[in-house]
């Protein structure tokens, strides 16, 4: 028993409630919001050290016995994700202070961000499938508020689509949970992992597993359910986009990761084969989008979809290399996507447009920014020793060890397309004839560039120090591959 697992969920919630008390005092809003995220980060670090020394931390709320109460389970995977999402939120917060605008700051921007964090951290930590639904709703509520925040015309248009898609997928989610409950009689994930192998009706469970794939697929933006993502993510300001791109789809990916390793393993031949095929199709669809657009935002948005495919392909292999690769890549992707969105955000601030064709020649006036962007671009494509490399390498290895060598070949080939898509931004924006740029003062530029650069530096550390982080990643992978560890931690307290 340890309440520590709940701290990264409760702290942002408390700070969000406090922030709602004085919306108009902008400087206090900033200070309290940063204090809240920092406190969350500290608690996440404590939790991380606790999990790495003492193993899985499980607590069942309200002192009820385990399968009946709501369990919160912090294993290495969830704590790694909580840690990286909190880190990303902190940097995005620093970035949004100078960019988001006083008007937005006065209308509950910071509480919404903190509520989003509550939902994200909760979804990563919960050990109960219905509670997962609740936390996903919490983060969706916050994301509805954020996507429409400011009320510009494209935001209003896109938020209707976003709302509709998510309400439909939430309704599906509840029905899927109901099906699962009627078949198994439990919603506790550990208990599900015990009960599902005992059930002989594999057919109905396979249907439920695919239903869950559809539900989480909507959130994670897999092929062909990603149609809502490019439009909706395009509308809000860059700081919000960075949060969404780095965190929201990852919750869906995490949910697939958890359910497809912990208990939907009764018919791997069908479900995981399907997952592998969908993952590859997702990558291909994402590549087409990433190369098709001349808009920097769109290019990075389509790169989210590619990453989702890569991570899910690793999971579908169900071997140590594939799963560990997916975990590493997931953490890497949260950091690098946030960094890239912030970098692209600086580009649009400097040029006053997000159209690549109107950019050019920036390397002379902003050399450091240019090279930082190049490093992030290389990191995204997975060039060693940057952070995309170890994850992708393991995923590809997992594919070769498993039955999907063709999938690994696709991932290798599309890595080049990913590289092309981001280097295209570099070539258009930094090389060639200098284009017209908006003059921004040095202080403002530094206030948005410094947090971004630190985030890029962190991804470099993650990549170059991969050897250092690998033990934690294999810890996380071990729990995914041996559900008995998870089950024991929850049910045998």
């Amino acid at each position, binding site marked *: *028993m340890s*309440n520590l697992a709940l701290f990264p969920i409760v702290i942002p*919630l*408390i700070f*969000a409630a406090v922030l*709602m008390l004085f919306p108009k005092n902008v400087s206090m809003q900033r200070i309290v919001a940063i204090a809240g995220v920092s406190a969350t980060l500290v608690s996440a670090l404590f939790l991380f050290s606790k999990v790495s020394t003492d193993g899985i931390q499980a*607590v069942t*709320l*309200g002192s009820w016995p385990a399968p009946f109460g709501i369990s919160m389970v912090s294993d290495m995977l969830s704590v790694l994700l909580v840690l990286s999402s909190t880190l990303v939120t902190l940097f995005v917060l620093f970035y949004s202070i100078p960019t988001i605008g006083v008007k937005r700051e006065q209308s509950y921007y910071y509480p919404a961000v903190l509520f989003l964090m509550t939902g994200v951290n909760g979804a990563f930590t919960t050990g109960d499938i219905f509670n997962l639904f609740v936390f996903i709703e919490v983060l969706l509520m916050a994301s509805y508020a954020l996507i429409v925040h400011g009320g510009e015309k494209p935001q209003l248009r896109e938020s209707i689509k976003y709302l509709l898609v998510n309400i439909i997928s939430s309704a599906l989610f509840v029905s899927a949970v109901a099906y699962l409950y009627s078949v198994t009689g439990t919603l506790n994930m550990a208990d599900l992992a015990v009960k599902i192998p005992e059930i002989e009706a594999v057919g109905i469970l396979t249907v439920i597993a695919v239903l869950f794939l559809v539900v989480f697929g909507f959130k994670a933006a897999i092929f062909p359910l990603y149609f809502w993502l490019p439009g909706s993510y395009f509308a809000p300001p860059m700081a919000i986009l960075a949060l969404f791109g780095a965190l929201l789809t990852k919750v869906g990916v995490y949910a697939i990761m958890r359910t497809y390793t912990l208990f939907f393993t009764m018919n791997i031949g069908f479900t995981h084969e399907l997952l592998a095929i969908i993952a590859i199709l997702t990558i291909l669809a994402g590549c087409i989008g990433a190369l098709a657009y001349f808009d920097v935002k769109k290019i990075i948005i389509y790169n989210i979809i590619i990453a989702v495919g890569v991570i899910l392909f690793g999971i579908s292999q169900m071997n140590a290399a594939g799963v560990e690769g997916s975990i590493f890549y997931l953490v890497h992707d949260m950091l690098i996507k946030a960094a890239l969105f912030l970098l692209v955000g600086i580009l649009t601030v400097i040029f006053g447009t997000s159209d690549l064709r109107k950019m050019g020649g920036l390397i002379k006036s902003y050399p450091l920014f240019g090279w930082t962007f190049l490093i992030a671009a290389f990191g995204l494509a997975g060039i060693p020793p940057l952070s995309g490399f170890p994850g992708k390498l393991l995923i590809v290895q997992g594919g070769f060890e498993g039955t999907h060598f063709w999938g690994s070949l696709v991932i290798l080939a599309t890595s080049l397309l990913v590289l092309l898509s981001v280097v295209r931004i570099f070539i258009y924006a930094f090389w060639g004839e200098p284009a017209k740029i908006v003059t921004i003062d040095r202080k403002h530029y530094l206030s948005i560039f410094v947090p971004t650069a630190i985030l890029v530096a962190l991804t470099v550390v993650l990549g170059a120090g991969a050897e250092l982080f690998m033990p934690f990643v294999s810890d996380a992978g071990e729990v995914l591959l041996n559900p008995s560890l998870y089950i024991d931690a929850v049910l045998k307290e």
Partner: protein
Amino acid sequence: MRTNDVMLQTATKVVTFIILMFAVHIFFAGHYTPGGGFVGGLLTASAIVLLMLAFDLPTVKKIVPINYVVLTAVGLLIAIATASASIVFDVPFFTHAYDYFDLPLFGKTSLHSAMLFDLGVYLVVVGVTMTIIQTIGEDE
């Protein structure tokens, strides 16, 4: 032309108090029987909405001068604080405590920490419902 709303206004003046008292009743009934903070909150909100229908927004704002967003935040804080008390006592989050007390007038009564949590829920429900209705109502 404005319709004659004397009947509505007169009835509202009485009915509002009945609804409010019923809300309190439902709130405490939630302890062992159906009811609780959520339903009580909705009933309270409906009483205020009835006032708004019978009179108008400015009048109601004068009668109930509450910032509903602040009310929501306070409710949230009460609810989290109640749940977080379990951290201090080192028992799993959300663990509740109760005991029986002999109160004057009520006799033997069971007092329950879950009631405080429910009070938070009640305030959040009133706050959120009223914020939504006010925002839509103001927008003409």
